């Protein structure tokens, strides 16, 4: 059981790294789908340990929302944006991150070490293998923030936001076995709506600015 837990946790971190490393927008959307499935696997292990029937609902919710629905929405949006700008426009697909991939991965590694250094002492000497993994969730959160601050395209920013959110979910499952069911469902619904709204805005950005690079949003300033 612990092996599966470690595998899923590892997959979470590796997919987070891939989202900051890969340039192709469609590529990172596929990676985020894999991350959603890894998160669902992790929840399943935590659920199997506690034996709570409610947790099965959470597994289904995470798998459906983060593994299937959200990546599907993003992929569909990328496809329609491609159609807007002419078939297979390469300029649309490639993102131009602020940092080059190597620097980003090094930076992400530093953030992960930082997460372990800060969070591990807070956990005390618990024997629970899941609780020991909490810093990994925090590392994923930080990598999500890194993705959001180095990526310019609207959809890449959204992927960064999803990585951030998956990291928080992972912290919740590692440290406490997950937040109460009501909060889990309500926050998932909020997440879905935020992603839908940002997608609508992405289309409008494309129409108004001719581009989805949010770094060009500089009309408002003092």
């Amino acid at each position, binding site marked *: 059981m612990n092996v599966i837990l470690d595998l899923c946790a590892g997959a979470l971190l590796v997919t987070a790294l891939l989202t900051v490393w890969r340039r192709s927008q469609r590529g990172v959307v596929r990676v985020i789908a894999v991350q959603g499935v890894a998160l669902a696997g992790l929840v399943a292990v935590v659920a199997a340990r506690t034996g709570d029937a409610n947790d099965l609902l959470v597994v289904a919710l995470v798998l459906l929302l983060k593994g299937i629905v959200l990546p599907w929405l993003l992929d569909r949006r990328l496809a329609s944006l491609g159609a807007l700008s002419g078939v297979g426009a390469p300029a649309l697909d490639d993102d131009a991150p602020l940092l080059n991939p190597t620097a980003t991965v090094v930076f992400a590694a530093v953030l992960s070490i930082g997460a372990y250094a*800060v969070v591990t002492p*807070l956990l005390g000497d618990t024997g629970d293998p899941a609780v020991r993994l909490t810093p990994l969730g925090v590392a994923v959160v930080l990598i999500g923030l890194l993705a959001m601050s180095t990526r310019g395209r609207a959809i890449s920013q959204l992927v960064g936001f999803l990585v951030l959110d998956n990291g928080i979910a992972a912290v*919740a499952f590692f440290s406490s076995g997950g937040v109460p069911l009501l909060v889990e469902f309500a926050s998932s619904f909020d997440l879905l709506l935020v992603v839908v709204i940002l997608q609508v805005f992405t289309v409008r950005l494309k129409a108004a600015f001719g581009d989805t690079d949010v770094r060009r949003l500089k009309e408002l300033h003092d």
Partner: protein
Amino acid sequence: MPVLVPLAPGLALLIAALVAAVPTPATVRRWAPVAASVAVGAVGAVLLTASGPATALAGVLRADSLSAWMLVTIGSVGVVSTWAGLDRDTGRGYAALLCAFLGAMSLAVVADNLGIVWVAIEATTIATAFLVAHYGTRGALEAAWKYVVLGSVGIAIAFLGVVLIYAASVRSGPTLSWLVLSGDHGLDHGLVRLGAALAVLGFATKAGLAPMHSWLPDAHGQAPAAVSGLMSGVLLAVALYAIVRVQAIADAVLGTGLMRIELAVLGLLSIAVAAALEWRQRDLKRMLAYSSIEHMGVMALGVAIGPTALPAVLLYMLAHGLIKASLFVLSGRLLAAEGTTSLAVMRALLGRRPAIAVPWLAALAGLIGFPPFGIFFAELAIAIAGWRAGLGWAVLVALGLLCLVFTALVRLAIPMLFGTPTAWTSVGPDDRGATPHGAPTGPLLPIGLALAACVVVPFLGGPVGAALSDAAAAVTGSR
């Protein structure tokens, strides 16, 4: 009383659903958000007179005096913004989203569950996203994008904090109820420390505190007047309310040190940022937005000082909300009349547009802290409480910065109200090429009532004083 607790968010959300689902005549759409505001405020007023806290829905909702005061604030600022700020062109989606926004804020202040508080505050972002983008211009779209992205990231950090606080309670019985958590039954100190610090930082993003304030001037500057009034007047205060609840947990577990330092730093930084940026403002609505950052900074400083300053902070929330909503609504009318909100163009308004400029001047006097308006008394009380609590240095720095803000706003307002018209001033809105939004005229009664309330409420020592001290006592669960 318990039956009333779900009514505050429930009625507003019900009106939202009805307006969205059923085709209604224009008059109904125009007045639906006003009705939702009245409902929220009325429930708050009744709960305020109740003898003790009321719980509902198996303890998920709980309204104590603090919640009731917040409901009254949301309701009254809502009434001013929507009664004065809407017109007959209010669309179905627009009216429904405004009602949903009011409902989400009401839910945030009556939930006794940090997770639900979080969900409700995130829901305010969702409800207001399209309201900020309402005008559909490039500026509005840019503002809405930044607002949703920064707001969601900030609030996600708050969720991480909430998750860690929950984890801290696992050994002693997992709970998210702030009432139970602030009783400190063996919470894990390390996790509470990190969790509370992150939760406050996250909610501070939504409260518009520096350095996470960058979305605020854009969103408040681009949104329609009624929406800006509500966001500036109460949404920021609701986020600060969440901070107060998290502070109560952290203070009970760790002592007052951590929260006091974090909030004092955020507060002073906000006042400083506002002071620096007000000096070179060129846009009326952005000027008001930076003023909100400044006032939230003073309120955050008040929260940092602790329970002795809290009644003043609560009075501040109401007075600032009413005045700021009035100012945003009047700015909306100025935009409609002049076709611009550029401070370089607007001149001699007192002579040219007295119906807008006279109440605007009165509200501005209240905003920059002249007596007899509530903000003056609240600021004074916070300064005194801070001095007594040993935060004299912070009070002195804040007062110095407030003088700077005062000077900056007066410097901007004088030419706008009194100056001589320029060649540009006489150009009508149609000739500016701008699309005029809203109407240049509207009811003055709600604005008059709001300003009168700001003057009268601080002097109602008996009932208001008792309500405020009850609300402040409620934070520690003693009432």
